[in-house]
């Protein structure tokens, strides 16, 4: 820690290495938004309840408002900016987004579920998505879109195998 109270940390952000001077008490959410200008991640409640600020840390969804930046040291962080828009058409067609404030968090949780289809052996989609509050859609648009995206992903996979 230098005399200003800043510490240097390194992390992998959306596939690239990042080295930062940060206040150790800073929230990962603020580092992303204010230091790095990645405004896609939203703050909905600041207390880990709504999931709007969800990012993936070493592949697992976390509320970035609850992660002190020092805990992200050496970790792999993926934000909404890393998501391939080609994967989003099922969510778009199903009406998964309305006002859009919860949406980046929803998409990150959905990305996690899609990367881990084995989760569906033990959990339902509604349970897996329960960490993301949405006040507009009533969730059918989100759950329906995610189910369609998973199905399309499986179809692509079986075509590839075939």
């Amino acid at each position, binding site marked *: 820690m230098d005399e200003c109270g800043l510490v240097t940390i390194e992390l992998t952000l959306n596939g690239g290495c990042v080295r930062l001077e940060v206040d150790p008490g800073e929230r990962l959410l603020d580092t992303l938004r204010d230091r790095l200008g990645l405004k896609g991640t*939203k703050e909905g409640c*600041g207390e880990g*309840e709504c999931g709007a600020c969800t990012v993936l840390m070493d592949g697992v969804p976390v509320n970035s408002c609850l992660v002190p930046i020092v805990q992200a040291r050496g970790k792999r962080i993926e934000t909404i900016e890393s998501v391939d828009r080609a994967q989003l058409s099922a969510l778009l067609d199903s009406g998964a987004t309305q006002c859009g404030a919860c949406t980046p968090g929803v998409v990150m949780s959905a990305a996690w579920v899609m990367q881990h289809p084995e989760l569906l052996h033990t959990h339902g989609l*509604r349970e897996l998505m329960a960490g993301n509050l949405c006040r507009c859609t009533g*969730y059918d648009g989100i759950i329906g879109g995610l189910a369609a995206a998973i199905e399309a992903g499986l179809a692509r996979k079986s075509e590839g195998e075939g």
Partner: protein
Amino acid sequence: MRSSRRREGISKLTGQERYVDDLTVEGCWWGMTARSPVARGRIREIRFGRGVDWSEFVVVDHRDIPGANQVRLIELDQPVLASDRVRHVHEPVVLVAHRSRQMCRRAIREIEIVVDPEPAVLDYRIKPTPEQIQYGPDNVFKHLRIEKGDVDRALASAAHVIEGVYETGAQEHVYLEPQGMIAGEEDGVLVVRGSMQCPYYVLNALMHALGRDESHVRVVQTPTGGGFGGKEDFPSNLAVHAALLALKSGRPIKMIYDRSEDMGSTTKRHPSLVRHRSGVDSQGRLVAQDIEMTIDGGAYVTLSPVVLSRGIIHAAGPYACENVRIVGRAVLSNSVPFGAFRGFGAPQSQFANERHMDRIARTIGMDPAELRRRNLIRDGQTTSTGQVISDGTDRVEVLERALCRSGYAQKKEECVSFNAAHPYLRRGVGLAAFYHGSGFTGSGEVYLSSCVDVAGLEDGRIEIRTANTEIGQGTLTIFATIAAERLGLDESQIVIAEPDTARVPNSGPTVASRTAMVVGRLIERACDDLRRTLGLSEADTGQRLRDAIMKWWAEHPDTEPVGHARYESPPGVLWDDQTYRGDAYAAFAWATHVAEVEVDLRTFATRVVGFWAVQEVGRVINQTLARGQIQGGVVQAIGWALMEDCVWDDGAMANAQLTNYIIPTACDVPSIDVEFLENPYPHGAMGAKGIGELPMDGPAPAIVNAVVDALGVEASAIPLTPERLMELVTHG
């Protein structure tokens, strides 16, 4: 029917959409608010602690307001910043600005607002003492009355008279994007950008408080992360606050509420208390409805008179009854002002009415569906205000479709055998039949006199200019579809202007389920007017229209071709504000919703396990968006019915955070089954009626009716939390 993709959908899904908090403004400082610690009192002193260097801050109080210290709305009783007295906890008193948000937080903690308390009204249901009077002679903001026929005589001769009292609680909007504004002066013009539903409401409030004319104020809506009414009236307050700090500091100011400040200090749904006394004949027909509705207005008048108005007009439900008396009161309490929230009084009054219909059914031993079937209004019959309904919709068919789709009759039987067999789970089925008036009440749309412009751009595209906002409901997509359909163009040829009061006419607020029906219709008429301006006929569409626009620009390089439209009431719609008689709304949407619930007698938790929503909303312009409105509204109403409980402690919301103010997650609700019956409305865009608020009206009574069906207890107040249900079941 086309179902176009949401225009800004990809931008939202990829996180590219830029909300007010995402905007970076050079030299911008943060603004924050110091608030009243008590519900009512006289401000004795404001102390500024020594924990910060005040020379680094800009501080604003009521003395810095250049115009009137009033938030301009229906009445002018709410101050922008309290001067000598406060009327609710968290009432704004002092504003501070600093370059660092952290320093602002520290400064707010250093400000002590010393208030000598005065007797506060903490329960709106209790008659105030003389020391508690703060408005008029009796703290009543508004009295309203509807009279039809002779209620007393009809009650005296009715076969059965059934009484009931019903209560609903406050509800927090929980738009996922909190309130936020940026204000700054640009070339002598004060520009405010922020999250809002109604740019012209904000503009009017700024002009009034700053003492500026329209040419020196400009309001721009930024993409808005949900509103539900919470961004109808409140943004005016925040915009004026940000503007005051900007003017005093000479810098742009950003004010973004965090969640607890937002929940603690902004408006909520009005709590309500409704009494019913109904007379029915031996056949189960309603012969008299005697209804008293009281709503808690909170500390200032804000929108309470019009919430009360919509509340009482919907209070008798979609039924034919020749003798109706409805008395409404909006009263003061020393809580945060209650404001607009999806449904605007109608969910409260129809919760009472649809619970009461079930009570009538139980009392006279009739199936609740049959009671409604006998009483639903038929074409040619009149509502409580004497409005003749003749839209051609078969309201009984709406009911039958909902019964059929949900398997209502079979489910009822299954529940009985399930309940007999299961040790601790109880299932029940309930329904609600209801309606919602589209657009402003009574002569409201005539007074608004909304305007829309449609311009032909130099490149041949069409620009739609309205002040109506995209808040998640799909305004951008719907407007593009309406104009493209009218002009025979591809939607890619339609540009929707940013809601910027310097560029768009006042097409009225984005409220009251009016955007698609009323403003959409104005877009159609402005499109027709554009064709007239270009010398075209209504048959001229597509390429011919584009050619005419290009030709116009070649001939008139300095003047753009613009079509205008101003609101005109559909023929035959007449309303009398004095007597509350006549056509309360140009059109109504009609619905029946059915809920199936399961109650766990170990925890008293109620789960909605099935939900079916059938509605007639005119023509559906976009299936995906319309279904999303219904499903989202139903889930918001499930929260209101079962879990969303504002806990009050000396006038303050004690649970102003999402940790203990619980809204439904994906796991708490079932898939919502939706069916639309479409009966095109000739005076709405493409045949549409209003849709946004309708789904807030029916689910709560349908769910509570289902709980009553499951347990046989007369639940009459929401939210029906496990605690409240346990009390009912164990103590009656």
